[in-house]
């Protein structure tokens, strides 16, 4: 497992306290899991994703990540409708371990702008991890 100072946490992203990241580009928000989350899970063997068109409220479970002997739910940091899922992960779930930022999980169209604003900055997320 990585030490906290070894984690890759890009400055330009926003973070949730459930260890997801979000990035806003125009009207679409891209969502994935953080380096910390992938490191805790270990070798990811399967990513269960929602279908395009599914809608979730902030904090809802939108999928699961599986390692050999554990299942972790992923929670949506911003409510909205799914407009894209990363199909590469269906056959190559290990991409999330290799680079959890390039390898996003879903893209959504948010219901409101406000929820994105309430997410954590890199600095605040780091504080959360340090406890």
């Amino acid at each position, binding site marked *: 497992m990585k030490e906290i100072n070894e984690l890759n946490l890009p400055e330009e992203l926003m973070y949730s306290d459930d260890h997801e990241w979000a990035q806003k580009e125009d009207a679409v928000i891209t969502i994935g899991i953080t380096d910390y989350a992938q490191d805790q899970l270990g070798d990811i*063997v*399967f990513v269960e994703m929602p279908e395009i068109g599914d809608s979730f409220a902030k904090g809802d479970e939108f999928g699961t990540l*599986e*390692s*050999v*002997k*554990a*299942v972790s739910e992923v929670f949506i940091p911003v409510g909205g409708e799914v407009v894209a899922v990363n199909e590469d992960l269906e056959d190559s779930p290990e991409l999330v371990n290799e680079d959890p930022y390039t390898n996003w999980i879903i893209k959504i169209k948010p219901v409101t702008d406000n929820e994105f604003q309430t997410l954590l900055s890199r600095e605040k997320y780091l504080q959360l991890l340090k406890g």
Partner: protein
Amino acid sequence: MRYLPHTDEEIREMLAVTGHERLSDLFRHVPEKCRFRGEIALPNQLSEWGLLDHFRHLDQSIATTSTRAVLMGAGSYSHYIPEVVPGLVHRSEFVTAYTPYQPEMSQGTLQGIFEYQTLTARLLGMEVANASMYDGASALAEAVLMALRVQRKKNTVAISTAVHPHYRQVVRSYLQASLYTVIELEVGEDGRTDFSPLQGVDDLAAVAVSSPNFFGIIEDLEEAAESIHDAGGLFITCFTEPFAYGLYKNPGQCGADIVCGEGQSFGMPQSFGGPGLGMFACKSSFQRNLPGRLVGQTVDLDGRRGFVLTLATREQHIRREKATSNICSNQGLCAMTAAAYMATLGRTGLKKVARLNFDKAAYLKQKLCDSGAQLLFETAVFNEFALKFPSDFAPVRERLLEKGIIAGLELGNFYPEYKGAYLFCVTETTSKEVLDTVIEEAGK
């Protein structure tokens, strides 16, 4: 007692280590109000000799296929079991092992189950098979639950009334505490399931059909697949007699989505109905919804081929209440038995034995019809068929019983509308001599 190795002296020494004076002190913390009072009320202990005597006595009171001919199937079949099958599978390295949680010391079981999964998938024409369920009946219940998971928001399941009545009862038991609806599909005059009522069922999750069905009839699975898929349902087929696929098209070829059934015919003694084997296979797109254990191929640290339990995140020990099934122990040794049996037969052997079953059943069927019996349904069968008789068959059956032949199963207990009709089964183990005796008595 020979199963308890401790000498009195060892017990004293071990108690000294644990800090107790007597064995009963080990249970000091069990509250008085929970304690067993007195001794367990059981008959006297028997020696190994006494046990054998007791069972020999019981054994003689039982009518068995070894002393009589049983022309009865209905979910339990008498097939010849080559000595190599029990001789190998009963090796204690297989029998006395637990579930293969430690793959490095369970490669025998794991490779054996992987081979079972493969042969099962090939037999049924499916893409994946699991490591077994309890029996054909619970496998069908699990297939229905799986179809409901795959189909998410649909809540209705249809089952043919020609599916084994006990299997239908088990499905109802499994679903009784849930909110799903089960409807039944009647059979038409040809003994095949009538799918026309499916039109107009709008939340149809799945339809379950058996082929051969309880009356021995081969269903038109290709037509069934079309009707069911048109109605938006998944197509579940089940079976009680896997030998039929040595002769007839397999369910996968005909468009089935999930196939399950009873594998007792493949090397397991009838054993008063258990242990048998729940065989379970499906299309690979549903594999993450499969119930039960799965063995997968992988490599070891040196890159050599090996086998492990896999996709365990579906299962109860990881996903708990969200698991695809509550099953833990399955019928592992029975799966090994079936694999060894399929290996013993080979494709050539399976086809030959299946053909012999068909021909022997056809012989008895034809001869009984020649002497006045009437087919309940005039459609193709495998090794079972149902007959009506011009006069009461019970006295004939009684006379045959005295000659050591159990001729057919009366259908009234299963289908009141067919009271007086009998379901016969003929396998490769029944000689022409026995069949001729039945024919002769029936003609009197």
